């Protein structure tokens, strides 16, 4: 009896030692948690999460001060990935938050008075132009955060939904025919 217990304990110890050694030996050099969270956030920098950008939100999540379901651009998929990273249950997006189709801002070049207010608002410097000149948005760099809409005194900025075309078209999830037709 005693010997059996001893053997079991011995095996346990040995395995524990191996596991411990392995975890030291194969430890991955990790980014700090904030970076990892920030890497999942879509970087739209829209502030819909209630923080002034993705990084502050990431910091708040890391500190446990914010829930993971506050970022509409990230959508359900983003929440899921955050949940996986943090080892918590995924949940639906928070109240009143809804993902919108990806859109980019377009400035009506004929109306723009060149006030530079939108330039200051854009978190990713996607608007170019100088004072008293008309401004233009670089489509590639616009994240669709809509932060440039409110400051514009002449309401010349509008959001255009990105349309699917031959270049960005994706293969759909194949249809299964296994379920019985109702």
């Amino acid at each position, binding site marked *: 009896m005693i010997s059996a217990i001893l053997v079991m304990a011995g095996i346990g110890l040995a395995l524990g030692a191996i596991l411990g050694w392995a975890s030291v030996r194969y430890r991955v050099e990790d980014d700090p948690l904030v970076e990892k969270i920030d890497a999942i956030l*879509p970087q739209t920098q829209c502030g819909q999460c209630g923080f002034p950008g*993705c990084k502050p939100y990431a910091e708040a999540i890391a500190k446990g001060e914010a829930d993971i379901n506050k970022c509409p651009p990230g959508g359900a998929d983003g929440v899921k990935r955050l949940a996986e990273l943090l080892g918590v249950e995924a949940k639906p997006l928070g109240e009143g938050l809804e993902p919108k189709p990806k859109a980019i801002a377009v400035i009506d*070049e004929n109306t723009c008075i060149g006030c530079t207010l939108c330039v200051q608002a854009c978190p*990713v*410097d*996607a608007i170019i132009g100088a*004072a008293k000149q008309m401004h233009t948005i670089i489509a590639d760099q616009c994240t669709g955060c809509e932060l440039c809409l409110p400051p514009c005194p002449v309401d010349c900025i509008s959001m255009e939904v990105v349309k699917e075309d031959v*270049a960005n078209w994706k293969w759909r999830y194949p249809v299964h025919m296994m379920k019985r037709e109702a």
Partner: protein
Amino acid sequence: MSRQLFTFNGGVHPEGHKAESNATPIRPMPLLPRYVVPLRQHIGAPARPLVQAGDAVLGGQMIGAPEGYVSTAAHAPTSGRVVAVAPHAVPHPSGLFDLCVVIEADGEDRSIDFQPLDWRKLDPSALRNRIREMGLAGLGGAVFPSYIKLNPSGQTLHTLILNGAECEPWITCDDRLMRERAAEIVLGIEVMAHTLGVKTILIGIEDNKPEALAAMGAAAPSGMEVVAVPTGYPGGGGKQLTYTLTGVETPTGGRSTDAGIQVFNVGTAYSLYRAVYLGEPLLSRVVTVTGHVANPGNFEARIGTPMTDLLAAAGGALDGADGEIVGGPMMGFDLMDQAAPVTKSVNCLIVKDPVRFPPRPTTLPCIRCGACARACPADLQPFEMYWFSRAKDFGKAQSYNLFDCIECGCCAYVCPSHIPLVDFFRFAKSEIWEREQEKHGADQARQRHEFKEFRLEREKREKAEKFARAAEKNKEAAATTTTDATADPDAEKKKAILQAALDRAKKAKEAVTPRNTDNLPPRVEKEIAEIEARRAQAEAKTESGEG
């Protein structure tokens, strides 16, 4: 012809169905009233339209200019008038519209003057540039711009492989081309070999095409070796043919050029011949029209020929026709709209009928029988990739080397459960691509955001420093002028504030243009430049209006 051949694993042997269309010579097409030339016919960036609705064009005139490195030109198939540069149906699995130049033919079929190229004298890079302008792209299906493939770009190439295997069932356009125009193909191959500087030239043709083998064998000069390769799908896949002929495996994620081998389709060699010897851009290609049509065969169709006209040329679809496939039955896709035109990539149009192309039987669960793995020419484990693609666990799917899949369809062909495996792989691949792109975009956005914050911070700091410096100066000045104790601290403060305000105003004047355009990629720089130009124009207008 006693070359040692290598046998790749896997592969399947579907019924060939070549006899339907390979008995008759390539037929010319009548001049049509309307052509639709897509600007995105190749892999890479679409061509930039050079014409507008209303413009008159001549046959062979460039109507789309290559844009960026991986791109090539598009040309008017005949003389006439541009009626629209607008989205139009194109042969694409999505059925989405893409930008096309629609040309109404004037019936005179006049062309620009074609200038043959003296390729032996021409500098290779000049030759490549001409080829780029002639719009040459691989005609085997991948439509990679040819001029890039003709550029050894520092790599030493030793072998040129001409792909005449044509392993997909039903398709016979390369077969007919080799039978009828072997001499011209050979001339094109010579140009290729010259530009690439290769020593060995192998022409691989499946042994189910004895006539093509004979014709090419007769035309090929010494130094070109015509090799009969065993018939079997996908024996004509680039990687597979390379392996069969040389035993070299194209490294994963790389190209055969990494191993000193370049592969071209025989059709591309033919169009290169036309480009160099006749000076003619890529204006037409041979297309197989077969299946459930009255008069199956091969047609020399101009790029831009609407599919409806192509079908009509083959006598039209027979009763009971059930849609069309663009490309072969193994890798092709459903034609969504018959208005779509023939492009450089369209090698075959198959009209389906319910007997030879029955609907896919009910899909059953995977029984892990491994038939797919045995059939896979890339030695993958399709059922594992399927499992994870279906579960949308893309990381896992990738760990089973999803991106080594060439989408040949062998696995789905043999699967006893009739699982549309390739559809799953395409789905998973495009999801992964999108994610990677999103990731890339997010990274850029993060960088730009951080840069902006840094810039704001810097501006603030600079302002503060200036303020402090000014204050210091004032203090000093005050100290030197009024050394006695009558100094009024309040006045001094006021002064400093005033000075700061002045400074600010001055600085604002200096920096009327808060440039945020540092470190931009050249493409965006260009976009900005264009925008500025537009703006200058608009300004000129408004100013003249105001003045």
